[in-house]
């Protein structure tokens, strides 16, 4: 490297330092997608597809590799049919929501392997997914609530901040709600909701709204 080039490099580096004070955090990069996203549209040749054909097509279009786990899930995936408009095409960015809706309609969920975006997902029964200890659901912070809400069938654990009201006061009333898919843990300042992402996001938002604002003191009239 000659002297002029080195000087130019030095000036560039100093300019970069000047725009970002020492110790200041680097600008936040957008977090990667949760799942590997399809890059090609799916052209539909038949009005009706088996669910395993749709899942295979999802992978072929650039989506994640799919593993079906468990005999019951495999039977369901092979037997389930998904109705689509023949002759049409599903755009690449619409394919994952279509797949996830079809899975949840048949009481199936997705569990992502490690990595963002996940290159491998497992399809398993929604019932009992909470108790399976194979791979923990993805953990997402409050800044990814909106992103989570775009996934109907992907299992996540969402941390949602709530107001100053004690979340523990909600525990009993919420457990009486009878929901099966979303599980809630209450912690100081936040709730942890585990379940299919959209439902978890809905539950998190609902609890955040209920618990927002300062603590209230009720007195009997």
């Amino acid at each position, binding site marked *: 490297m000659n002297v002029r080039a080195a000087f130019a490099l030095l000036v560039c580096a100093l300019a970069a330092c000047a725009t970002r004070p020492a110790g200041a955090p680097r600008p936040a990069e957008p977090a990667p997608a949760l799942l590997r996203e399809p890059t090609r549209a799916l052209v539909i040749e038949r009005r009706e597809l088996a669910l395993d054909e749709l899942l295979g097509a999802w992978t072929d279009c650039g989506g994640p590799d799919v*593993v079906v786990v468990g005999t019951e899930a495999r039977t369901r995936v092979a037997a389930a049919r998904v109705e689509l408009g023949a002759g049409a095409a599903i755009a690449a960015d619409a394919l994952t929501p279509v797949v996830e809706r079809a899975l949840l309609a048949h009481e199936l969920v997705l569990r992502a*392997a*490690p990595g963002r975006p996940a290159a491998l997902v497992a399809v398993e029964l929604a019932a009992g997914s*909470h108790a*399976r200890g*194979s*791979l923990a659901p993805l953990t997402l*912070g409050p800044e990814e609530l909106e992103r989570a809400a775009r996934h109907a069938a992907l299992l996540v654990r969402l941390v949602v901040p709530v107001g100053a009201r004690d979340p523990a006061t909600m525990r009993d009333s919420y457990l009486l709600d009878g929901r099966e898919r979303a599980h809630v843990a209450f912690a100081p300042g*936040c709730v942890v909701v585990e379940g299919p992402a959209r439902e978890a996001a809905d539950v998190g938002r609902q609890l955040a709204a209920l618990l927002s604002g300062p603590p209230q003191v009720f007195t009997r009239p």
Partner: protein
Amino acid sequence: MLLLPLLTALVPFHAPSSTGLPELPAPKASITIAADAKLIEVLGALADQTGQALVVDRDTRALLETSETGLLRDTKVPAELAWTYVESLLAFHGAICSFEVREAPTLVAVRSRAGQRTPASAPVPLFADVAQLAWFERHPAFLGRVSLELPNTDVRQLVNSLRAVQSQNSAYDTLINAGQANAIVITGSGAQIAQTVELLQLVDRQGKAAAGAAVAPQGTPAAAEGAK
């Protein structure tokens, strides 16, 4: 004098790699997994390509010999992702890995989670530091144990509360509060550890924010910070 800061500004920052934990050898090339392959065949192919010694007990062998991967398509896995990918497949099917011998040449055991085990035949978790989390992210099926200090959280209350979202497989996945140290000891698969540490750190940050908001009068910078 200026050269050193210049060079450090130009060189991208890399977190220190997880030192001290045994690294498994990567295959020399990408591996192909057939959709109809049995798990034992995938594991055998990985052992052949990497030279890593693997041991499987009788009950687990039965599981691996009868279980197909469940993949819907033949898959080509890049060499650098081979262990993560294959371990994910094993974990999805209820298997867990551990080191039987940690010193080179290492010996890795693969066990079914379902089997009943005596203490002598149970896998021993790999003790690690939170700074070594990257290793567990790369090895989602390895049984490990880390302790995590949570300065802003009542760990006893939190561990009780998290039972609602904690995996129910108490043989391998546990959260134990170390009350006086205000720390939580996490035992589980690599994926479980990585995700749980992230979860607990997020909860701890929210607890700190909530405490800040409760202490600071409304309208102060501290209250605004706590509300973020």
